[in-house]
């Protein structure tokens, strides 16, 4: 069966995720397509969703306006695999708090029981690349690109920690829901996108 992967194209680096996901599908020889999605209709026909990096306040506010926020939440709660990257992971969380400003009152999907700190490593000048590992999903070495990145400081009992950088949690998983602080779509390494589209294929079959 052909799988239908969407990248939420409200705001952020949509095109980069489409390229990475397409490359992953090609390399795994999976029958499927990847497209940008914005409307509730487009989202409701998906087998898997990537919420890209961007500004979480913008993505949240605008997905609330056109009704896509609700459809995403329903689909994810009914088992659709989702990969939330940076702003995408913020969107998946229950509550978000900014390192300087404090708790933010922004629309979120409330899927992952995690305590999340926005801009956790500082402002853009402190943004960085670092080698990380996601051993439990067989990605021992990955170049993590962290851009004004959030981190997870606490997790509920149903959350699996996929990766840590120093003491900060930078990748989490709960069932078919994955969240990362870093940007796999900004590197040439498609292993995390491959892992995700495999999940989508398993779930679809």
């Amino acid at each position, binding site marked *: 069966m052909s799988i239908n992967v969407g990248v939420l*194209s*409200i*705001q*952020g*680096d*949509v*095109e*980069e995720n489409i*390229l*990475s996901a397409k*490359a992953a599908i090609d390399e795994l020889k999976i029958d499927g397509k990847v497209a940008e999605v*914005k409307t509730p209709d487009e989202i409701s026909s998906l087998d898997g969703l990537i919420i890209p*990096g*961007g*500004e979480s*306040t*913008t993505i949240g*506010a*605008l997905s609330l*306006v*056109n009704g896509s926020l609700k459809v995403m939440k329903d689909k994810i709660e009914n088992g659709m695999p989702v990969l939330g990257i*940076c*702003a995408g992971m913020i969107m998946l969380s229950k509550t978000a708090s*900014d390192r*300087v*400003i404090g708790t*933010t009152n922004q629309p979120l999907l409330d899927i992952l029981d995690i305590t999340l700190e*926005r*801009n956790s*490593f*500082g*402002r*853009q*000048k*402190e*943004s*960085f*690349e*670092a*080698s990380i590992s996601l051993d439990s999903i067989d990605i021992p070495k990955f170049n993590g*690109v*962290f*851009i*004004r990145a959030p981190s997870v400081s606490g997790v509920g009992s149903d959350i699996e920690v996929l990766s840590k*950088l*120093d*003491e900060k949690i930078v990748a989490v998983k709960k069932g078919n829901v994955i969240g990362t602080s870093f*940007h796999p*779509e*900004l*590197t*040439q390494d498609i292993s995390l996108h491959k892992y995700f589209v495999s999940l989508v294929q398993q779930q679809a079959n």
Partner: protein
Amino acid sequence: MLPLSGQRLDAKGIISDKINSVETLRGSSTVKRGFAHMLKNGVVMDVTTVEQAQIAEEAGAVSVMVLDKLPSEVRKAGGVARTASIRIIEDIMNSVTIPVMAKCRIGHVNEALVLQETDVDMIDESEVLTPADEFHHIWKWDFTTPVVNGARSLAEALRRIEEGASMIRTKGEPGTGNVAEAVTHIKKVNDELRTIKAIYDSGDNQDLVRIAREFKVSYDIVQQTAKLGRLPVVNFAAGGIATPADAAYLMSLGCDGIFVGSGIFNANDARERARAIVLATTFWNEPDKVKEAQKMIDERQSMIGLDVKTLELRMQDRGSSL
């Protein structure tokens, strides 16, 4: 995936660092250009106060640009326009969660260094301020903070990228409320991209060398850009955008996003207009939504525009022509 043409390994802005025991690299092209990629499909709004910055954030802006005066006010005030007060920039950084940018004068290395120390998220080396050096732009590879530059043509854009710009915005004519120049510039860049892509596809490397000489840039960056068929960095439109329909039009021309200068906070319905321009940028290819956005504003509240032909000061022509 991020195109990395023009990566310089000797750049002083790249810093090997550590977070406790973890080795990190800051200020690399991936990290600096990657920041601009996160702004894509969004609106960056010019602001002069904390209140305006909060209105921008609530409206869904992806970032704010702090100025001492809006471009239209710079135009009226005359004299020398410099970087904004550091205290105001810091106050704004402490009141919004979205990234904060600020402008420095063209070529003014030390204004840019001050902004880097202030920890703004991106520096705009901008023709809206009075140029400090008529012959050079800043060597941006020496900065850890990413820098955005204006351009009116592909040649200008590639020259700025070779100096280390992490993002380009087409210039337009700032502070006019007139979108015509922005349209001209983005169309010119698109046209030139199509031309060099066609030359690349034809395999005529000698003609690409000719283009590189004409553009006064290296062959490498022309070859890589021609292969991509787009700029190797994120490209926003700017200059004169005043309405939701303006924003949608520029998005339809293939821009990655929008800068709005005087158009919002010089209008009398700033709060509504800010929201409407964000909506039109996101849903630019859905005419019914752009219409709804346009309905949120009142044309009688728009800033009074200027005919570019009658201007005494053309900001787009300022700074080094190389």
